[in-house]
């Protein structure tokens, strides 16, 4: 054999991150993965919350004081943004699975909608939660 190298020959690589022009569908795809990882942590926080709730008022008080602290609220806001973004991105994926929404204009627009929805829905949720918290106490 003329080819001296053993095994497989060098295969061409697909276009890699560095040579890609930034576009919103790419950002949405990356953010969908990132928010997925964030929501993994979110479920663990929720499981811990259920455990605290089942363990009585003292444990619950300690747990919720962490969640209502400023760092806790920042984390929860991040989880809320992640939840709403991942939800919207998941709906986009369902449309793609049925063969719809692949046109660049449509895909770009739905990506922007997902980002806007995530931020607006998270802000609305936090405003409602904080207002109703004030009305009860």
């Amino acid at each position: 054999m003329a080819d001296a190298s053993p095994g497989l020959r060098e295969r061409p690589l697909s276009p890699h991150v560095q040579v890609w022009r930034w576009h919103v569908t790419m950002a949405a795809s990356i953010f969908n993965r990132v928010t997925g990882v964030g929501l993994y942590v979110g479920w663990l926080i929720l499981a811990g919350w259920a455990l605290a709730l089942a363990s009585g008022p003292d444990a619950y008080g300690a747990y919720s004081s962490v969640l209502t602290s400023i760092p806790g609220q920042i984390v929860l806001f991040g989880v809320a943004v992640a939840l709403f973004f991942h939800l919207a991105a998941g709906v986009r994926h369902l449309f793609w699975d049925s063969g719809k929404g692949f046109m660049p204009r449509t895909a770009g627009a739905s990506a922007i909608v997902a980002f806007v929805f995530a931020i607006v829905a998270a802000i609305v949720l936090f405003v409602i939660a904080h207002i109703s918290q004030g009305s009860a106490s």
Partner: protein
Amino acid sequence: MSLYRSGLGRARGLGSAKHGVGAFIAERVSGVALILLTIWLVWVAVAVARGGYAEARSILASPVHAAIAILTVDVGLYHAMIGMRVIVEDYIEKPLTKAALLILNALVGWAAAAIATVSILKIAFGAGA
């Protein structure tokens, strides 16, 4: 004999492993369920922000809400475990590290699901703290 054949040559013509589609479908089905369960979860978040411990306990004392709560956490963790598995398989090349992370993913996911489920059932069955 197989010593003289390349990896590509041996793989060619065999088709896929024929079981990857299971995880794909499970991810979609759990995702569709989570669209509905998320609406419930957001409602609970607002109710608990308003009513705190007592409100949270009284919601989960209802069998219907306890059942939806268990579905939400367990389906959510199931979906998260499938997704995390894909991420580990995509980015981690070293076989030992990959195996360790996949096992960790399973252990953490199942443990969290068990803890949440038992906690919710404990509240639903009215056991004291």
